[in-house]
């Protein structure tokens, strides 16, 4: 009996605008109107500045731990550019550029890292709050996509996670649910090479992370995640597949975090300086600017003007976050349930007046009983 292949496939890698500024016209022409490239580049500059300011806020003690987004602006921005308003974007915590493009007020991200849940109250756009537990959000995206399919509202869900998250069981369960139940989900893995200090090869011994999706029967593709054109192209294809066919797609976006994991991390302990230097040259801002300058759409004056606008905007954003009224101590009771159960009402009312969190009238009641017993 002959041995025949039961299944063979390849994983494609998509690149349109490379780090030297070379542009593949056959794939890239007409993909993004020039004015949109300009708008996205401006947005990237603003997000980069936001990131620098957020880092400084942490370093000067004005904000808690913060994960720098620097270097990873493109994947989420490209997705946000492609998604419709009704779609859901379900992120991890290195997707500020996409969240802001969708309309999330920037101060909400600062509030989150300033330890204030009001940063997670979002009614401006269909995005979920930052997911801190790695991998937890992919199932929520799958459920949201399922709800949209059930309601036939035409919306899809696009979820973001890192390379390390694909080791979590929840990734595999989400991929399996999405594929088996025909759900319109786009899975975007931002493979930045590191899960804190653990390199991707210790998370995944297959040649690509993308092929993890193959096991679940979904389309999989690898893309240069620092290339706005390639990212927009693959997300467009994936969104079409989701919206028209209710099929999920797995996108592995190769990118790099130019900063530490968070402000509490020091990547020099585990990353080579050479590697960092190589990726600094691949910075998505550098090549996007090259693309624009080659076409006379950008110059030094415009750069300066945009940086100036960004600085002004972010000053106001920081002001909004820092000058918000202090939260009331009772706030952490108030959204526990839609109606507060009696015990929680009691604890809320007496949190500062009784060591037991009890109704002070209890003391009077027991005194009465004591008196009547003695009598």
């Amino acid at each position: 009996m002959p041995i025949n292949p039961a299944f063979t496939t390849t994983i494609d890698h998509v690149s349109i605008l490379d780090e030297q500024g070379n542009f593949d016209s056959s794939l890239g022409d007409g993909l993004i109107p020039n004015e949109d490239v300009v708008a996205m580049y401006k947005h990237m500059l603003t997000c980069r500045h936001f990131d620098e300011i957020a880092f400084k806020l942490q370093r000067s003690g004005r904000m808690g731990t913060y994960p720098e987004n620097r270097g990873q602006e493109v994947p989420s921005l490209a997705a946000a550019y492609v998604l419709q308003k009704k779609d859901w974007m379900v992120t991890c915590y290195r997707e500020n550029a996409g969240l802001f493009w969708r309309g999330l007020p920037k101060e909400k991200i600062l509030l989150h890292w300033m330890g204030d849940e009001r940063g997670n109250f979002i009614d401006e756009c269909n995005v979920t709050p930052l997911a801190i537990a790695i991998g937890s959000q992919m199932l929520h995206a799958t459920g949201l996509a399922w709800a949209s399919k059930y309601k036939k509202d035409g919306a899809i869900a696009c979820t973001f996670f890192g390379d390390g998250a694909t080791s979590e069981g929840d990734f595999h369960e989400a991929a399996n649910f999405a594929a088996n139940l025909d759900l319109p989900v786009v899975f975007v893995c931002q493979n930045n090479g590191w899960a804190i200090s653990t390199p991707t090869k210790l998370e995944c011994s297959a040649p690509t992370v993308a092929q993890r999706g193959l096991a679940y029967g979904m389309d999989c593709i690898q893309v240069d995640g620092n290339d706005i054109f390639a990212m927009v192209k693959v997300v467009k294809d994936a969104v079409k597949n989701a919206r028209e066919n209710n099929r999920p797609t797995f996108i592995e976006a190769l990118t790099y975090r130019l900063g530490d994991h968070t402000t509490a991390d020091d990547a020099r302990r585990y990353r080579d300086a050479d590697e960092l230097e190589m990726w600094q040259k691949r910075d998505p801002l550098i090549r996007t600017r090259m693309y624009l300058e080659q076409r006379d759409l950008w110059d030094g004056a415009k750069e300066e003007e945009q940086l100036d606008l960004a600085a002004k905007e972010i000053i106001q954003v920081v002001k909004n976050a820092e000058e918000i009224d202090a939260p009331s101590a009772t706030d952490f009771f108030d959204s526990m349930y839609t109606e507060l159960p009696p015990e929680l009402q009691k604890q809320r009312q007496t949190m500062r007046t009784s060591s037991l969190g009890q109704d002070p009238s209890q003391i009077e009641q027991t005194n009465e009983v004591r008196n009547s017993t003695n009598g």
Partner: protein
Amino acid sequence: MANLTLVQAINLALIQEMEKDDRVLLLGEDIGLNGGVFRATEGLFQRFGGDRVVDAPLAESGIMGTAIGLAMGGLRPIPEIQFEGFLGPAFDQLTNQCARSNTRTRGGLTCPLVLRVPVGGGIHAPELHSDSPEAIYTHTPGLKIVMPSSPYDAKGLLISAIRDPNPVIFFEPKRIYRAFREEVPEDEYTIPIGKARTVCEGEELTMVSWGATVVQCMNAIEQSGRSIELIDLRTISPIDTEAIAHSVQKTGRCVVVHEAPKTAGLGAEIAAGVMENCFLHLEAPVQRVCGFDTIMPYYKLELDYLPDAERIGKAITETLAY
């Protein structure tokens, strides 16, 4: 009125709520054509179709996590975890995600869902099919937890749970899924979550229990011939402290009965509540009749583990003699 078992009452409640509200859908392992391993969803797949009664892949975290997304997306999902022993893989999504959703978004993204879970021992089931983990989830702020002890209560409480805007765990005591029948109204009705039921009134002692052990308590009370007030909590979280306090202030004595292990079980919480509210009324220490602080044994010894009328009877005698 129909004479129904507890599992039939659950089936009826699901049918009626699904007919009334098309946001309600079910997901779980083997709940479709098979009707669930206990037949709680029997006939629902045929009646409502595969879009509303969904056989999920065998992945508890996936069931719980996608149910969260469904709820955030405006639906009223009812995920089923096949046995309480398989809650482990769903624990993270349940406690770290579902229970926190409302408060971490300050009310922006609520998570209205009902997690149905068969619970407890007494049916000669294999390993990990007989535990009573309700205290673990009671210690998780943000969840509501309900456990019926009769067919009538099962229907009314389940309807309330489905309509509740908060996440609710609906524990179904499998020992009494088919142990007895009861008249269950065909018409829809609700039983409020958070309110206990006084099963029988009495003057000498208050007994507090929930789920399958309520039946054991009734047997013990009958055998004792004493005047004992039995309170069935119906809802474990939030506990109806007021009903317990009201009764113990009258009787001065309290026995708590549950299947779960004794240490850090709900009996301890109830005893502490009695101390807070009834200290000067007490005539005896609060007694607990519980499962032991051991791993639930395989079924040859499960009846030695579970509280029965004899052990409850001893607690009645000791507490009344104190």
